[in-house]
């Protein structure tokens, strides 16, 4: 009896295996079939984004911006007479995923260029793959300088952390009138580590003092210990160069501990989830970012109007604007290159000059980074509020 049972199980297992294998063959066959049919009349562009997970707000905004740009380009006849086919992959905000999905975009979908990511850590994972396969990659909003240092095929359309750090140091000294600063940074995010470094140098050079430096890791929830130590050091303001998920909790817990001094951070704070998490506690906090929807220039207002029409009245944030710009820079370069050949396309992107974008006039320098101005935003009555624009 037992013997028969075992045989049955074996047989069933083999059948299952065969079924799975045949499914796989069928699925991969389908993929190839679809590809050869579509390749002729469209230009394939890959996008990888954190559509889910801890930085989902970034990925969603950025993706919506890119999608709007592509739809608009296609509605105006596409580029080189062909429509752009945007293929989006989700890395779920997880480390280790980006390299795999970008490899998939390049080898399976044969994309001619890759757009992504917001978080510097994940852009750094995908950049070597694009560089190796000589596929141009444009990061919409990774600010860590190392991203474009990966190689000559990697570009970005946002300012870099050395600039953002200098600007925040200037803001802390001039606007907040702070001499003593405490820093609470995320050791697990290259973005946070980089921004801390680029803030500290100009701030200390300008006569400022770092009175406490505490650290945490992404996905931590309890910051009360670090904040209590910071409170004891008696700073004038606290610099939190992290992402919004943790920044919201940090602001909330700081206020719970009776810390009333200003907290400020970088563009990693920019997400509506920040307000959902921290609510009233956010009064008296500031962050620097790439653009403000309150800007009255016609190109910004037109973008805001189109975005709201497309996405149920949602106001685009900086990540959406940069996602939009990244696709526009690529489309402009393809048009100028006159081909999708990767070397020529790379040269065309590198030659981008004075392109009018939503986040300002864009010229890429020899290091494939743009020089742009930044804005400071605060939170008032549960809404983001524009404070000032700082130019380099």
């Amino acid at each position: 009896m037992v013997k028969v049972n075992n045989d049955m199980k074996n047989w069933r297992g083999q059948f299952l295996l065969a079924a799975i294998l045949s499914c796989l063959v069928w699925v991969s066959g389908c993929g190839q079939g679809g590809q050869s049919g579509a390749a002729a009349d469209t230009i394939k562009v890959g996008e990888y984004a954190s559509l889910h997970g801890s930085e989902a707000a970034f990925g969603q905004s950025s993706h919506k911006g890119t999608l709007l740009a592509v739809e608009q380009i296609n509605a105006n006849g596409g580029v080189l007479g062909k429509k752009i086919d945007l293929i989006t992959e989700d890395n779920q905000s997880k480390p280790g995923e980006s390299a795999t999905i970008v490899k998939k975009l390049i080898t399976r979908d044969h994309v001619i260029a890759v757009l992504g990511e917001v978080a510097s850590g994940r852009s750094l994972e995908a950049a070597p793959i694009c560089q190796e396969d000589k596929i141009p990659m444009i990061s919409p909003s990774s600010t860590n300088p190392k991203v474009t240092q990966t190689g000559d095929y990697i570009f970005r359309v946002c300012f870099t952390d050395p600039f953002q750090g200098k600007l925040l140091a200037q803001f802390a000294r001039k606007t907040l009138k702070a001499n003593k600063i405490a820093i609470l940074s995320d050791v697990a995010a290259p973005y946070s580590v980089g921004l801390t470094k680029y803030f500290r140098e100009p701030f200390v050079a300008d006569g400022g003092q770092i009175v406490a430096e505490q650290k945490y890791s992404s996905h931590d929830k309890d910051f009360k210990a670090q904040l209590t130590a910071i409170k004891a050091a008696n700073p004038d303001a606290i610099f939190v160069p992290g992402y919004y998920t943790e920044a919201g909790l940090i602001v909330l817990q700081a206020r719970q501990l009776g810390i009333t001094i200003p907290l400020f951070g970088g563009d990693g704070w920019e997400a509506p989830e920040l307000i959902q998490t921290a609510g009233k506690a956010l009064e008296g906090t500031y962050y620097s970012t790439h653009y403000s929807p309150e800007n009255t220039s016609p190109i910004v207002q037109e973008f805001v109007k189109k975005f709201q029409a497309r996405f149920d009245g949602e106001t685009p944030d900086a990540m959406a604007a940069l996602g939009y710009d990244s696709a526009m820079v690529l489309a402009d370069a393809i048009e100028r290159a006159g081909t999708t050949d990767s070397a020529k396309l790379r040269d065309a992107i590198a030659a981008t000059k004075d392109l009018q974008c939503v986040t300002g006039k864009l010229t890429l320098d020899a290091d494939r980074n743009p020089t742009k101005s930044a804005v400071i935003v605060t939170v008032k009555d549960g809404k983001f509020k524009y404070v000032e624009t700082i130019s380099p």
Partner: protein
Amino acid sequence: MTEFLQQLVNGLSLGAIYALIALGYTMVYGVLRFINFAHMEVFMVGAFVGYYLGRMPEWGIVRHHWIPAWLVIPSESIWGGTIIILIAMIACGVLGVLIEKLAYRPLRNRSTLTVLITAIGVSLLLQNLGQIVFGPDPKAYPQVFPESNISLPDNLTISSSQIVVLCVTILLLWGLHYIVSKTRIGIAMRALSFNPTAASLVGINNDFVISFTFALGSALAAAGGILYALNYPSIDPLMGTLPGLKAFVAAVLGGIGDLPGAALGSLILGLVETFVRGSHWSTYTDAIVFSILILILLFRPAGLLGKLETEKV
């Protein structure tokens, strides 16, 4: 001195939450001699039940007045918060019993390793189900209890959520102590943990007692989940992993299978973690916490309060 006292309060409230989770591990270990790794996911489900109940005023059926107003749980009130914790505890108690019935009971007489691996499987299953059902993005937790800060002399601040954590934990620990030491079912639980065969010989229904143990442990985890989310109001389906692991360490530290030991271990862990975090070595917090575990186990292999049992042949 102020900093020291403030860290003491922070550490105690963190340790109190660990204690609620650690008790579930230690109770199940006491009666079944295996680690229920799915426990950390019960903790997560508890937090999510609280999340949806806390958002009740925003439900469709509430906004359209399809249910009477007195049935709606008010937000930001002590009453509402207590009801939410109780409902989540009942829901997770049922979940714990179901997990035991479906996953562990069929394997009752197999080797502990089989059950242990099943437990890891159940844990991953719940994590991934959570990602599908609740969505993988972090969610901002609603204010279940009224929120305010209490300023004490000497620049010391205690938030109301820390007070809630301490009060609820003390109340639940007292309740658990009463059940285990004074009631018939508690005596049955202890009998089972001494010797299951002898317990069934004197007429104890082992299946029922084991189900009850799971229900009790899971209910405590649910309360822990809500209290954790109140203090750190951003939840996601993977939130259980780290606190779950720490609570497990706390249970081992105090002597697994021993109830006061689990509570003591949790308090020690919460305090050590908080003090290290507030120092210059904050990056090494987890390394230091786990080194302490190794050190204690080197000198006291059965944990702080655990008694070393010699295998009888």
